[in-house]
């Protein structure tokens, strides 16, 4: 029974998981990148996967990680999501720091349902995509980030293709992506890359892993105005973004994380707003 169920599960990095028609754009890209970059291990559940399969896959992931109840990130991965024409950023659900079979199954179901939510449907209509969304779900080991990062291989505001912009905040990425905190911003020239400008912000809030999920708390006063990256780390982050861009063949926006002195690649999207 369990073996049968696991046949549907597509593990990141394995060729079967590169198929965007089955696992969605987001997961297919990550699966391809997993071979070359430090992508947290995980699996994809094609649309319509049974709850028992999700539970079995989580158990298998736990075994591979050697942990009893590993914390995971559960994200939707739409079949036409993260294509070069529309990024879908933020339109679908993401659950961080999910632990235990029951919680994982609940979050997988919520992700599948989110493809049908009003916001996502409106986005699909606006981008001329068909309305009947098929949504795969991506489950990955959670990186307990010391610093959350977003990097663009083009200036997202001016469109300047020579510029790389790295944003960084304390903790998990939710406060950064959700916009509740002003991040440290590094601007780099793609040749090198070389640091051009650095603006250290007062970072008042951060997302941390807590209980079965996350919560946003105040950053301790002593760390608020402190740069959360060494310059060398900013350069390394920009280097990662450029490598991903080279692999993908177009400008990208990546989510990444520093944890225990290592840089992890979490997400990759095309920058769809460039003319």
């Amino acid at each position, binding site marked *: 029974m369990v073996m049968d169920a696991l046949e549907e599960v597509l593990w990141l990095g394995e060729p079967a998981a590169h198929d965007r028609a089955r696992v969605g754009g987001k997961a297919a890209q990550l699966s391809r990148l997993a071979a070359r970059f430090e992508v947290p291990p995980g699996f994809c559940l094609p649309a319509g996967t049974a709850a028992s399969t999700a539970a079995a896959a989580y158990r298998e992931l736990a075994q591979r990680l050697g942990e009893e109840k590993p914390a995971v990130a559960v994200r939707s991965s739409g079949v036409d999501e993260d294509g070069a024409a529309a990024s879908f950023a933020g339109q679908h659900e993401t659950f961080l*720091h999910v632990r235990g079979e029951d919680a994982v199954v609940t979050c997988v179901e919520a992700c599948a349902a989110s493809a049908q939510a009003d916001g996502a449907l409106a986005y699909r209509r606006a981008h001329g995509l068909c309305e009947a969304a098929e949504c795969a779900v991506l489950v990955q080991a959670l990186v*307990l*980030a*010391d*610093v959350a990062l977003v990097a663009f291989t083009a200036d997202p505001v001016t469109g300047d293709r020579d510029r790389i912009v790295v944003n960084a905040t*304390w*903790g998990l990425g939710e406060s950064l992506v959700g916009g509740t905190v002003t991040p440290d911003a590094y601007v780099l020239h793609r040749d090198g890359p070389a640091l051009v400008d650095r603006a250290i912000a007062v970072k008042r809030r*951060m997302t*941390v*892993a*807590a209980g079965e999920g*996350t*919560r946003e*708390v*105040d*950053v*301790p*006063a*002593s*760390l608020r105005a*402190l740069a*959360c990256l060494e310059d060398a780390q900013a350069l390394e982050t920009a280097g990662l973004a450029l490598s991903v861009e080279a692999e993908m063949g177009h400008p990208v926006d990546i989510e990444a994380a520093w*944890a*225990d002195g290592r840089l992890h690649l979490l997400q990759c999207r095309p920058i769809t707003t460039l003319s």
Partner: protein
Amino acid sequence: MQQTQTLAPGAPIPVPPEFPVQWSRPDDPQQFWEHDRMHFPEALTPMDGAVIVRLGAGFTFGARAYELPLDEVRMTVINGWQYQAIVPKLLPPEEMEELGRRAEANLMGAIGRLGSLWEDDLLPEIREHLAWWAAFDLAGSSEADLAAHLRETWRRLGRLWELHFLTVLPSYIAVSEFDEMCRALFEGSALLDSMRMLGGFDSLTVRGDQGLWRLSRKALTAPEVQDVLERRAAHEVPAALEETGPGRDFLDALGKHLDEFGQRGHGVNLSSPSWIEDPTPAIKVIKDLMGRPDGEAPAIATREKADEREAAIAAARETLQGYPAPVREQFEGMLAAAQVGAVITEDHAYYIDFCGGYRVRCVLMECGRRLALADALSRPDDVFFLEPVELEEAMASPGMADMRELVALRRTELEQQRAMDVPRHLGTLPPGPPPDSPIGRFIGKFFGVPPAPPQAPGELRGAPGSAGVVRGRARVIRSLAEAERLASGEVLVTETTSPPWTPLFGVAAAIVTDTGGALSHCAVVAREYGIPAVVGTDVATSAIPDGAEIEVDGTAGIVRLV
């Protein structure tokens, strides 16, 4: 008080006609003067007033050493009452901000090495001063040697106050900033939770109380001693104990305890006798402790606090697993500093306020004895009604001046001053609230902030000082001299508690104060004793009738009349 609150920022504060003010420096009226009821709840003799001025100089020294963004701290005495003003630096905002950052960096530097700062730098020097006083033979000294000793005593007392503020500024700010960090990291957890991670250490306060407890157990083993302590009033006990062998044995043990822990009077006031001179307060505490079962031994309470502390720290560390590594490092650093700071905030008072104060008092009393013998004073403790300059002149030629009339006048004056209605504030209101800084945050938590208005009839609000809910009879105690009125299991209601009040915490079921915040001495000690405390109610001593049944909710910071 009401008047002060309705004035516009920067406005001069009207002086009540019954409290005439004579300023000593031209710009004094422009400063914002506050009466610190917490440390100075009583009118001061001229000699105590002179000590207060040195205390202000010590505060200024400490503030400058850490480059705090202020010009000086002035302490003065007006109509016998202490007032203090923090004189601000008049600089453009950018420069103030830069200064603030420097002060924060200096304080954090000191906090980072707090244990070594205290053990290796400050405490050895404090001990050297104490040893210098102890080595001088007061009774056997010549007039000239005593006069020289007195001059050097003033110099060293000034230095002790400097060391005091070098010590307390980083110590209290370590505790306060650790609390700030916990509030940020563990939203929804109250201040008291961070304090649980700092409790259960063997401070000298705790050790002194353990000594009194052991004496109470010793008293229970000898029927003659037990009988005297149970039947006689505290002040009659020493003479009665002298009459039996076991009694003398007990007095001997009490004497040994007081040699170490009895160098304490009533706060910073040198004019009140120490326990060595008058052991009545210690005997009163021992009498109360004798009625307690063995299970209430302070060592057991301390061990429970230590277990609670380790459990709280383990829970915090568990939670922090989901936080960024730099946050965990900062937490560990601040925790270690705050634990050291929490002990130093008690121990510094033992060395400086108690032992240092006692030594200076002994010098002054010896001068007083010589002057009384020369008929310059009526009795030795008249010396506290002289100014230091007057004393120095009198010591130069003890037979020349007769100051008995002057002292009698000043004694009468002090009686009148004691009865005065003391304005909380004088001078000029500050232009705005102080900027948010570690120092500002600490001051709010130490001295307290105005309490919230009552939400229901028969209710008083203050700050939660120590968790727990207790009902009991209120005993309104206005000075330590009245401490005998407090019976075991009653609620101590008082304006303030300074370190000398500590033993009463072993007697009371709960504490309610007019003044102070969650980091005030009262709150800190109440948590060590595990009794509920509501601090900073502003009005408890006037609003709660003596003997009334009240409920003290130290968790919520509410007192209810029942």
